[in-house]
């Protein structure tokens, strides 16, 4: 496979020997004419090549990060060749339907994609002036998302999960069901797997096959047994391809990045090997900027019909949302879908947490002219009432349910209805936005009208279910 990947003919000098090998890093001395971030080909004693890139370069020392691991490398026999450019990926729409490894090389036995168009995988920052603000509502068929945390085309909305929670099933369902209300456009799918297990990858492939999406999906796998440093390039390879499909070919791309926690661990590994001053929990201080350089590669661009909608999945270590990985992610992405262990244990699917989940772009993609006029207010009122339910439950734990006021008891009933009827649904149940909104009003109507402060009289008249307004609920505390 000599250089097929980068498409460069052998050139440049080959250097023999390294002064140091440490973790994923190799230091080579007295190398000439090498650029920062240049791609390096390393030949190991067995004659196999591994790819690396330059992290630091001076006249005397060149620090190379070996993407495919340093196992088996020896300082004396190490051969390095500098390829004269930064990491590039040949891109073409014919890559749809194919499987690649974490560095973008074919992994399905097929030929490498032939393309003269080779892109730097680091991409370039999108000019904010050239962005188009995303606003088209994507119906996922999941009430918890559509009703309360709506996704729009071009948004970056990650899933914060925990070990053992059904993030894979939820995201597979989203991919299966995602569609626009008034347009029949299929999403192309770019799926980048970082450090996940084979059976998880299998699960997704099976899902894509069943839903007929396989032909318009690209899979980029750096699975759990692949060298961990390779993962640093995997999302970049995936995003580079996604950008080509979206902004050159005009496709609507849904990109799934999983699991970002594994990606961040690889970054930490490299940082530690370089002896960098660690930040929180040992992650490098530049974790935020590094993650931003990935997550910001989503959205829409003025004058281009395509879009990149990004879903990153990450597992929160110990379910801790303040851990640096979810924390910094939440600071960059346009909201987050948080999975909740308590809901999961109570058998509610999808276990999407009512309160900490958020879609920042929902406000511009729902309501009159987008979904339905009552949508924003309904969502806001559901959030407010559900927050109150949480408070009442806390109180009930202390004083006992019997001691609650009649109104508070009514709130508990609303909580049940909301979780069991609205949040809860089947893995193959694809709800229309109308169904979702009606279910929302059904739940709210468990409460007396007067409690719905955020809803105008007019909307109440239209949507509040009178028959369920029991006189009892309205009575005073």
């Amino acid at each position, binding site marked *: 496979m000599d250089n097929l990947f980068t498409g460069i003919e052998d050139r440049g000098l080959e250097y023999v020997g390294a002064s140091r090998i440490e973790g994923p890093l190799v230091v080579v001395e007295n190398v000439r004419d090498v650029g920062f971030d240049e791609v390096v080909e390393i030949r190991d004693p067995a004659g196999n090549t591994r790819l690396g890139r330059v992290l630091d370069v001076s006249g005397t020392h060149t620090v190379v990060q070996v993407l495919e691991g340093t196992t088996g490398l020896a300082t004396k026999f190490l051969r390095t060749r500098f390829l004269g450019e930064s990491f590039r990926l040949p891109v073409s729409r014919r890559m749809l339907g194919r499987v690649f490894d974490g560095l973008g090389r074919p992994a399905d036995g097929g030929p490498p994609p032939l393309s003269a168009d080779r892109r730097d995988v680091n991409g370039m920052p999108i000019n904010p002036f050239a*962005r188009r603000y995303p606003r088209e509502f994507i119906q996922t068929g999941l009430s918890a998302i559509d009703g309360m945390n709506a996704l729009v085309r071009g948004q970056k909305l990650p899933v914060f999960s925990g070990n053992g929670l059904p993030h894979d099933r939820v995201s597979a369902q989203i991919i299966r069901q995602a569609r626009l209300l008034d347009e029949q456009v299929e999403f192309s799918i770019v799926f980048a797997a970082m450090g996940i297990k084979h059976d998880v990858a299998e699960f997704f492939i099976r899902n894509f096959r069943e839903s007929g999406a396989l032909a318009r999906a690209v899979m980029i796998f750096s699975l759990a047994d692949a060298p961990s440093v390779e993962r640093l390039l995997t999302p970049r390879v995936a995003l580079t391809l996604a950008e080509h499909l979206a902004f050159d070919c005009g496709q609507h791309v849904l990109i799934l990045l999983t699991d970002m926690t594994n990606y961040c661990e690889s970054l930490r590994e490299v940082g530690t090997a370089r002896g*960098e001053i660690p930040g929180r929990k040992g992650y490098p201080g530049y974790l935020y900027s590094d993650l931003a350089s990935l997550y910001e590669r989503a959205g829409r661009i003025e004058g281009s019909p395509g879009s990149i909608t990004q879903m990153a999945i990450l597992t929160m270590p110990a379910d801790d949302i303040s851990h640096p990985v979810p924390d910094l992610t*939440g600071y960059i992405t346009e909201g987050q879908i948080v999975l909740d262990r308590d809901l999961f244990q109570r058998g509610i699917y999808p276990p999407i947490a009512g309160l900490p989940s958020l879609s920042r772009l929902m406000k511009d993609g729902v309501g009159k002219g987008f979904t339905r006029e009552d949508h924003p207010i309904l969502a806001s009122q559901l959030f407010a009432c559900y927050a109150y339910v949480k408070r009442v439950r806390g109180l009930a734990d202390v004083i006992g349910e019997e001691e609650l006021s009649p109104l508070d008891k009514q709130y508990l009933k609303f909580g049940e209805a909301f979780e069991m009827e609205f949040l809860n649904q089947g893995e193959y149940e694809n709800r229309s936005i109308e169904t979702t909104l009606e279910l929302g009003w059904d739940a709210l109507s468990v409460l007396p009208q007067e409690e719905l402060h955020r809803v105008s009289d007019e909307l109440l008249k239209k949507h509040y279910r009178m028959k369920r307004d029991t006189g009892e609920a309205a009575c005073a505390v």
Partner: protein
Amino acid sequence: MATVKSDGRPFATRISGPIITAKGMSAAQMYEVVQVGSLGLVGEVVRVIGDLATIQVYEDTTMLKPGAHVECTGAPLSVSLGPGLLGNIYDGIQRPLPGIEAKSGAWIRRGEKVDALDSEKKWTFEPLVNAGDDVAGGQIIGQVAETPLVMHRIMVPPDISGTIRSIAAKGEYSLAEPVAVVETGSGPQDIMMMQRWPVRVPRPIRERLRIAEPLITGQRIIDTFFPIGKGGAAAIPGGFGTGKTITQHQLAKWSDAQIIVFIGCGERGNEMTEVLREFPELEDPRSGRPLMERTILIANTSNMPVAAREVSIYTGITLAEYYRDMGLSVAVFADSTSRWAEALRELAARLEEMPAEEGFPASLPTRLAQFYERGGAVTTLAGDRGSVSIVGAVSPPGGDFSEPVTQHTRRFIRCFWALDTGLANARHYPSIHWLQSYSEYSEDVKNWWETAACDWEDLRTEALTLLQREERLQQIVKLVGPDVLPDSQKLILFIAEVIKDGFLAQSAFDTNDAYCSPEKQVALLRIMLGLYHRGRDLIQDGVPLGMVRGMECVSDILRAKSALSNKELDRLADIDRRLNEEADRIAQQYVKGTSCYG
């Protein structure tokens, strides 16, 4: 050494991300701007040792090699100041993003060079001095209507003074043409409508003034409870999703500053796009003109180079000072100062500086202080009153306010709007926590408010006290349930809910409620406290709380903020009247009722 240069020009010896080392730099000045390599990547000298200089590069250094030439420019990083800034959007080093797009398309290519201001465009200059007049630095010599909203004063640069030898007549001039010649001690000096100023140096003023006037933001919890003065400094810390950006957008839209500088520092691209899309369409509530006519945007988003993020804050504040010098009130929003601090940390780490707390350089507090100190109410060199108010978002890791950036920021601001994750999760927005926030400006602005509403101070004190008492009562409720409380205390819980829902919560997306006029703020709070007073009296007379809660006007009071526009104060008065009638009726009935059965 692998690379030996013989032509004597400075060249790079080491490249490590945004930090490079160059040799042959003994003549370089600290903070001098340099251009590196064949693309002419812009950088700034941040350290000189012997003939080695360390340079932070504002653009991506991929494939830059040792041996690349380094070109010194002889000047520190400076911005261009003149008509044409308003309505524009710049990156961290003042390159106009529309101009970059015209050259390199949707993606920002490195090495792109575009002038900050259009030097060909003609502006109508109107002279305000005559030949023979003596002028000093900062003095106004003419004006240009930069936008229908803003009269741009043309000032003598701060470091020039002398006698006007000639001044242009009213007419059309470009920024490159001199509009005046000043005879100075060292010969004649051309004055253009554009001047340059180094970003890291505060522009001079005559003196600092006491803050006396509030910056009216139209946000109730801010204006009424935790006001910021014109020239004041506020911090708005909060975890992700708590509302830092939306609150700052709200302030940028509705506050009564004459100029807005919004710095998107290491945050999302779409948020800047949103401002660009929205502001031209929104009307200033006072003048009716599009908001973009008074706004300058600096966008150095999270995926743009980190060194330029560091400098974007200074670029923004320098533009603000320039407009302040014209005698205008300017408000600067920095979203987020934490990303700026992190840029400092990242660069310091690459420079192998000794880290202090959590990896931040030991200079962090000094840098924060220097930034916030560039705000203030001042007498300008020209003798006018101008101000720069600063609102800085802080993004503490994990939402934990004990971290260094939040803690140090607190020392240099006097207004703290603490965002609360619990409130945000419950979709109570703005999620500014009424018990954890404070403002030291409330005393300064009291007089201003009391000329309009003599009971302002009483209203806010009483409301805040009620909220504090509610917090204490909630502690009891959490332990033993609400039943043990007497009705008089349950009333406090009820009124606190009314204040939270009907007054403190304010949706940025509600047409009527996004901006709440000071008059409406006072009127709303007055009604709610009126409800409290009447309720208290009724309960004292033995009326059960249920009857107070059940009053018909309650839901009108709760919905008034969004049901009534700022112009419908008469309808608020109406609600107030009905409240009193209803309370009178209950009192009468109840007294009658009790006498009947009693």
